């Protein structure tokens, strides 16, 4: 039975999901676009963000959860970015960003991060106190006010990333490397450094979305799988490495997923999404190698 409130709820769930998803997927897309590698450990960066948010939320400060949340927003990207830089320097650079070996290596990284968190943080799903708690009443149902704030923050962060890419020197370097790394190098772009920064930036975006969702879903060492899968889907449907396509796909898939989840079944919506990706690649197998225009 499809009613007005159900549709509205579907739209809300979808939009919030889409905003956070866009942030996660943008990181993955950036890494692919510039470095031409796929980072299987991307979801673990989201999980690390959530775990850092949990640390900051109560224990570190003992103050109001809002303060912990703001600290986490600042600290999580720094920690996760540093881990990504280390991974780039210790592993990816040494295998010359070979596409297939990078996939294997980042898959190893996935297990190392996930199991490392299990070792130090433990196996429990730990809830966080929401930094801001209020309820918004819609006709027929209520909705978490924090979720609406999350959507807004995600959009702000997306805009900030966009500015970084469009208006700064490092953004210019990234765009140049994306188009043609050899030419960029010839024009004096420090390509290796750009790679490292892009890998870190991608991880930082993932970590930020982890901080944002932590108060909703808590922090758990296995929580990286879902964001990875969904952002994978978004990045491919949007055209690998195509940032605008990624954002558009995040909106479509986030909202579509929300709709199908609410109206039918979340599992069904994920099945449809994965098959959609397979279909896109089967029809356009070359789309991956060529990479679309920005």
């Amino acid at each position, binding site marked *: 039975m499809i009613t007005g409130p159900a549709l509205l709820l579907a739209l809300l769930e979808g939009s919030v999901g889409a905003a956070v998803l866009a942030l996660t997927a943008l990181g993955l897309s950036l890494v692919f676009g510039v470095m031409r590698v796929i980072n299987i450990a991307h979801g673990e960066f989201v999980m690390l963000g959530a775990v850092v948010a949990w640390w900051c939320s109560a224990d570190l400060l003992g103050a109001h959860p809002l303060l912990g949340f703001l600290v986490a927003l600042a600290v999580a990207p720094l920690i996760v970015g540093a881990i990504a830089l280390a991974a780039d320097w210790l592993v990816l650079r040494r295998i010359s960003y070979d596409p*297939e070996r990078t996939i*294997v290596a980042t898959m190893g990284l996935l297990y190392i*991060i*996930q199991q490392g968190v299990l070792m130090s943080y433990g196996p429990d799903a730990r809830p966080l106190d929401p930094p801001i708690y209020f309820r918004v009443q819609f006709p027929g149902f209520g909705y978490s006010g924090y979720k609406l704030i999350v959507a807004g923050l995600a959009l702000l962060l997306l805009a900030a990333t966009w500015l970084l890419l469009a208006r700064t020197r490092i953004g210019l370097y990234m765009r140049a490397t994306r188009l043609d790394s050899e030419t960029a190098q010839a024009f004096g772009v420090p390509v290796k450094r750009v790679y490292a920064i892009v890998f870190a930036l991608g991880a930082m975006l993932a970590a930020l979305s982890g901080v944002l969702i932590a108060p909703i879903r808590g922090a758990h060492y296995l929580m990286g799988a879902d964001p990875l899968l969904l952002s994978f889907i978004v990045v491919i449907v949007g055209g690998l490495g195509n940032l605008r396509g990624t954002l558009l796909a995040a909106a479509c898939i986030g909202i579509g997923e929300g709709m199908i989840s609410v109206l039918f079944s979340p599992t069904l919506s994920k099945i449809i999404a994965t098959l959609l990706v397979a279909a896109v690649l089967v029809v356009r197998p070359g789309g991956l190698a060529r990479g679309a225009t920005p």
Partner: protein
Amino acid sequence: MRIYALHLAVVAALFAVQFALPAYHYGNVTRIMLYAVFAIGYNILFGYTGLLSLGHALFFAAGAYGAGLTAHWWSFGPVAALGAGVGAALLVSLVTGLIVYRTTGVAFLIVTLMLAQAAFLSTLYFNTVTLGDQGIVLSLPPVELFGAALHLADPAVKYNASLVAFAVALLLSLWLLRSPFGRVLIAIRENEARTRLLGYNTALYRFAALVISGTLSGLAGALYCLLFGYVGSSFASLQYSTLPLLWTLLGGTGVTLGPPLGTAITHYLIDISSGLTSSYMIIVGVALVAITLWFPEGLAGWFRRWRRVRS
């Protein structure tokens, strides 16, 4: 011929050690041989043909569910259920092969990953049939063979059934590798464009390699389900796609004995480390990173090179 003698000696040794192994290792070797069938199947696609699949759980699960569902719902006996499992894996491989007919490289990797993920989610979605997460527990009647009743619960039956499957898979893959067909697969791995201009429809060969690889993986899944009496949705999860990759990479790609070696090492590494820490899967992560950094050819490849340097 010496190479066949070496492989037969491995099989004979595995037959012989069953009389000396302590019970716990007996069970471990049984599992290792079954997983090795999976690894050998994976290697035909990855090691010989050069196609990196991240979706082999699809075939393993197809075999396991083909056997498990027919045994559970239609009371198939073990032999019929094994046939159903292998048949299901063959069918799934054929369909997958047609879907990915023209895809290679990273696109192939992602498509196989997505198909396997869709299959995994489907085992959850259609849980009235598959019983989802919780899975199906089987209790099977004994198999009549030469007048004797073989109970699947008997460790010796498990061991020797796994050994037979292992021997078949190993010798088949060796023969395949050395046949004209296998030579073409290797040529595709080395340089697909060149192979095409030698007169080979490489897409068709890739398709054939996928079907053989998938069916062997399904044989492993079907036997695992029947011998250990259980199939659940975790058999279709990503872990069952990454493990054969690790086994093959660790043991050595493109070497017939590499994947079984990698399987054995991984199994014992996980088993030993699970006694030290709950985070034992970290071993898998460290191994994957170490292989890409230092042993791109795996242990067998490294050993071969080391021998060549010495001689």
